[in-house]
């Protein structure tokens, strides 16, 4: 039991450090979400199932959603959050769709 808790806590602290130090902001948000999930496991170990359920629902679902919305809302319109490859694929898909409608 002690070893399980020890490994869990190493994960917790490591994920917190990674979320603070990682360069990409999206990765930091996902790491925070994973940290929340592991924290809810820790709450389960200290016999607090109510807190574990609440933490899993709020910490890993809601907080992530709202962080991602904030990240999308604060991106610069010129550089964008989607990478160049994604945008190119998107444009080609749109061109294919246009061609299809023309044919029809």
């Amino acid at each position: 039991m002690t070893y399980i808790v020890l490994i869990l806590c190493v994960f917790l602290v490591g994920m917190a450090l990674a979320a603070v130090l990682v360069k990409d902001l999206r990765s930091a948000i996902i790491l925070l979400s994973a940290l929340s999930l592991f924290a809810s496991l820790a709450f389960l170990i200290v016999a607090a199932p109510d807190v574990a359920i609440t933490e899993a629902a709020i910490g890993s679902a809601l907080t992530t959603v709202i962080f991602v919305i904030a990240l999308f809302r604060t991106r610069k319109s010129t550089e964008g959050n989607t990478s160049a490859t994604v945008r190119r694929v998107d444009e080609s898909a749109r061109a294919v769709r246009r061609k299809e409608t023309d044919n029809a």
Partner: protein
Amino acid sequence: MTVPQILYVSAFLLILIGLYSLLTQRNMIRMIIGLNIADLGVNLFLVTIGFVDNGSAPIFRAQAAAAGPMVDPVPQALVLTSIVIGFGVTALALTLVMRLFVTHGSIDTARIRGLKW
């Protein structure tokens, strides 16, 4: 080391990591991530205070007394409300960041006059 001691230490480290991020980062979303980590550490600390060795969750199966010891329900109830309040604080802070982006065009504290230190 016992289970509560390990959890105390990791909660302590989580609080320190969160506060370090809050103090040193320049990107505001990262500062709020730090705030969330510190929040998590405080919650873990409070719940661990109520833990007793070999304690079961404070839920009765029948009205008769349970077999083993039960953990303290009071810190759990406090943390339950604290998590929900923490989400409210995060949502408000992120909306403020979005508002700041609209008015100043940046979320970097070094680029906004009046937020530099």
